C-alpha cells in the first residue's frame, strides 16, 4: 500500500502522459500500414528513449505496443490486408462489414474490444505478476537457467512454423550474444581483434537491422517487380470512418470480449505464442459459442470483438514473465527488456523488492495507457485511416532514414551503423529462406542469462550437473521443455508422413 502514492506520483507526470499519447498515435499509424510492423516501430523508438526516465521510456514503448497491435485492424478492416499478423483474424468479419458500408462500426468495435481486453489484462498483470515474482524469489541460478531454456525452446519451436528454422534462429541469437567480453571472467570471445566488438554486438544495431532494414529491403525488392501498388489503398469509399457502434451491439459483443480476454492473457503469459495465436483461438471459440455461427466471416461484429480483445490482452500479459522473471514473452517485450537494461533496470523478482515504487508506477501507467488508447483511438480515427493514403515512396525512405540516424544517435558510432546494415542484409536473407527473425532476437537477449546462470549453478554445485534435476522447479521446467520438443518433433514426423502418403 505504501508504494501506491509514490507510484501514482511517478506515473502521472505530464511527460509520461504525453509520451504515452505519442506512442499510441505512432503505434496505431505504423500498425495500420502493411509492410511496417510493431516490433519495427518499437525498435525505431528505442534510440529516442535514451534521454528519458525509465518510466517515460516505457510509456512511449507501451503506447506503441498497444496502439500498434490495434492499428493492424485498420487496414484489415478497410482493405482486407492485416497491418499486423495479429489482425488477420479481424480481417474476416471486419472487411465483410466494410464491404457492407459499416467500416466505421467495425473500426470502433475493434477499438472498444482492444481497450476492454487491455484493461482486464492490466488487472491480471497486477494480480499475477506480484505473486509470481514473490514465488520467483526462491529461484537460484539452476531455476533461471531452466526458465531461460524453456522460454527460448518454446519460442524457437513455435514462432516460425518450421521446427529446424526456428531452432537455428534461436541458437544463432544465443551464439551472437557470446561475442564480446565473457560475462563472468571478462576475457574477449569471437571479437576477431575488432575493438568495436569487445562490447558485443550492439543491441540497437541488431534490432533495427533485423526488424526494420530487413523488412525495408523486402519492400524495395517488391517495388522493383511492381508487386506493390504505390498507394496502400486506392479506393476505400467516401468516409471510411463513418458508422457507430450502438449500445445494443456493444452489449451483444461483450460476451465475446469476456471470452477473448482470458485467452489473450493466458497465451501472452506463455513465451512465444503471441497475439496472432490468441486472436485466432478467441475467434474460433467465439464462433463455436455464437448463436449465429453462420454469420462469422460474413460480417459478425462479435467476431471482430473476439479477435481484437484477445490480441490486445496479450500486450499486457506478455509483461507478466518479463517483470516477474526477467524473461521476455515475445519480441516486443525482449526489446523492452533491452531498453530497461540500458537504463540500468534489471526486471525480475528483486525489482519488486528493491524498486516497488517503479513497479507500481508501471502498473498504473499500463492502465493509464489503456484508457488513453480509447481517447486517442476515438479522437484520431479519421486521421489514422488516412495512413493508408500515404505513398510508399515517401514513407519507406523516411523510415530508412530514421533507422540510419536513430542507430547513429543511439550509439555515436558509425561501426554500429554498418553493423545495422549488415544485420539488415542477414535478416533479409533469413526472411527469404523462411527463418523467423524473432527467435534470434529472443536468443540474443536470453543468451547471457542462460550462460551466466548455467555457469553459476555449476560453480555453486562444484561441477555437479545433477543440480538441474535435483532441484524440483528446474527439473519440472526442463522436463516440460523436453516434453514440448518431443511432442513437436512427433507432430512434424506425423505431418511429414501424412504429406508423403497424400
Amino acid at each position: 500500500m505504501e508504494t501506491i502514492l509514490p507510484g501514482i506520483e511517478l506515473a502521472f507526470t505530464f511527460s509520461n502522459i504525453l509520451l504515452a499519447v505519442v506512442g499510441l498515435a505512432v503505434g496505431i499509424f505504423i500498425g495500420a500500414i502493411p509492410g511496417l510492423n510493431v516490433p519495427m516501430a518499437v525498435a525505431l523508438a528505442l534510440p529516442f528513449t535514451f534521454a528519458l526516465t525509465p518510466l517515460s521510456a516505457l510509456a512511449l514503448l507501451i503506447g506503441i505496443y498497444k496502439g500498434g497491435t490495434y492499428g493492424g485492424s485498420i487496414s484489415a478492416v478497410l482493405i482486407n490486408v492485416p497491418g499486423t499478423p495479429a489482425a488477420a483474424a479481424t480481417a474476416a468479419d471486419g472487411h465483410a462489414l466494410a464491404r457492407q458500408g459499416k467500416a466505421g462500426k467495425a473500426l470502433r468495435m475493434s477499438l472498444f474490444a482492444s481497450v476492454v481486453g487491455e484493461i482486464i489484462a492490466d488487472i491480471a498483470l497486477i494480480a499475477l505478476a506480484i505473486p509470481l515474482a514473490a514465488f520467483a524469489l526462491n529461484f537460484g541460478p539452476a531455476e533461471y537457467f531452466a526458465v531461460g531454456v524453456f522460454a527460448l525452446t518454446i519460442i524457437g519451436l513455435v514462432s516460425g512454423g518450421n521446427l529446424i528454422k526456428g531452432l537455428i534462429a534461436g541458437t544463432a541469437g544465443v551464439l551472437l550474444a557470446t561475442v564480446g567480453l565473457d560475462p563472468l571472467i571478462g576475457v574477449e570471445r569471437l571479437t576477431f581483434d575488432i575493438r568495436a566488438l569487445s562490447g558485443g554486438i550492439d543491441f540497437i544495431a541488431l534490432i533495427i537491422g533485423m526488424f526494420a532494414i530487413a523488412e525495408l529491403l523486402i519492400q524495395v525488392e517488391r517495388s522493383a517487380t511492381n508487386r506493390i501498388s504505390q498507394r496502400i489503398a486506392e479506393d476505400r469509399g467516401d468516409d471510411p470512418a463513418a458508422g457507430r457502434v450502438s449500445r445494443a451491439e456493444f452489449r451483444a459483443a461483450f460476451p465475446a470480449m469476456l471470452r477473448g480476454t482470458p485467452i489473450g492473457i493466458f497465451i501472452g503469459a506463455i513465451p512465444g505464442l503471441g497475439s496472432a495465436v490468441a486472436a485466432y483461438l478467441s475467434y474460433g471459440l467465439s464462433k463455436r459459442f455464437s448463436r449465429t455461427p453462420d454469420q462469422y466471416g460474413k460480417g459478425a461484429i462479435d467476431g471482430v470483438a473476439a479477435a481484437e480483445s484477445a490480441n490486445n490482452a496479450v500486450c499486457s500479459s506478455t509483461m507478466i514473465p518479463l517483470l516477474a522473471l526477467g524473461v521476455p514473452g515475445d519480441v516486443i517485450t525482449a526489446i523492452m527488456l533491452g531498453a530497461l537494461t540500458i537504463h540500468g533496470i534489471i526486471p525480475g523478482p528483486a525489482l519488486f523488492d528493491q524498486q516497488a515504487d517503479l513497479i507500481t508506477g508501471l502498473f498504473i501507467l499500463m492502465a493509464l495507457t489503456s484508457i488513453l488508447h480509447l481517447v486517442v483511438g476515438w479522437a484520431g480515427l479519421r486521421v489514422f485511416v488516412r495512413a493508408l493514403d500515404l505513398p510508399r515512396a515517401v514513407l519507406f525512405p523516411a523510415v530508412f532514414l530514421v533507422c540510419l540516424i536513430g542507430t547513429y544517435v543511439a550509439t555515436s558510432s558509425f561501426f554500429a551503423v554498418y553493423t545495422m546494415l549488415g544485420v539488415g542484409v542477414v535478416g533479409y536473407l533469413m526472411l527469404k529462406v523462411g527463418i523467423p527473425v524473432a527467435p534470434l532476437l529472443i536468443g540474443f537477449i536470453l543468451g547471457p542469462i542462460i550462460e551466466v546462470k548455467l555457469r553459476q549453478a555449476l560453480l555453486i554445485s562444484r561441477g555437479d550437473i545433477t543440480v538441474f534435476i535435483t532441484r524440483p522447479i528446474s527439473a519440472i521446467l526442463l522436463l516440460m521443455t523436453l516434453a514440448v520438443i518431443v511432442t513437436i518433433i512427433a507432430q512434424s514426423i506425423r505431418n511429414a508422413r501424412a504429406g508423403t502418403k497424400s
Partner: protein
Amino acid sequence: MRASARDLVGGGAVTALAVAVLVALPSQADDTGGAIVTSASFPTWLAWALLVLGIAWTANAAGRLRRGTGEADAEEPAGWRGTLWVLAAIAAGIAYAVLLPLIGFMIASALLMAVLSLLYGGRRWTTVLLPAVILPPLVYYFFRYAMVVFLPSGTLFG
C-alpha cells in the same frame, strides 16, 4: 527457385557458418573460467548445435528436392531486377554512412531520401524531391531542440 532448393542453399550456409565458428573458436575464446563450462564451452556447444541443425536442414531440403515434393514459391521470384534494387538500397545506406561526416546530415539525408524514393517507385517530383527537401530539416531540428543531439554538419563545408 523452389522453396526446397532455397532451403538447400540456406542449410548449406548455416552449416558453413557453424564450421567457420568451430574453426575460429580455439583462437577466439579462452578455455578457462568455470567448472565444466569454461569461457569457450558455451559458444562451442552452440556452434555444434548450429552445425547439427544446418546439416538436418540441408538433408531435409535435399530429400524433398530428390523426391520432387518441394512446394513452389508463394509469390513470383524477384529476379535480377529485385536483387539489383536491394543491392542499390544497401549501397545507398553505406554511402550515407560514409558521406554523413563529410557532407553533413542535411545534404546526405536529402540525397538518400531522393534515391530511396526512386527505388521505392516514386516517379513524381512531389514524392521524390519534396520529402527529400522537407524531411531532413525537420529531423535535424527535432534532434537538436527536442533531444539536444547535434547531428553531423559535415567537414567539407567547414
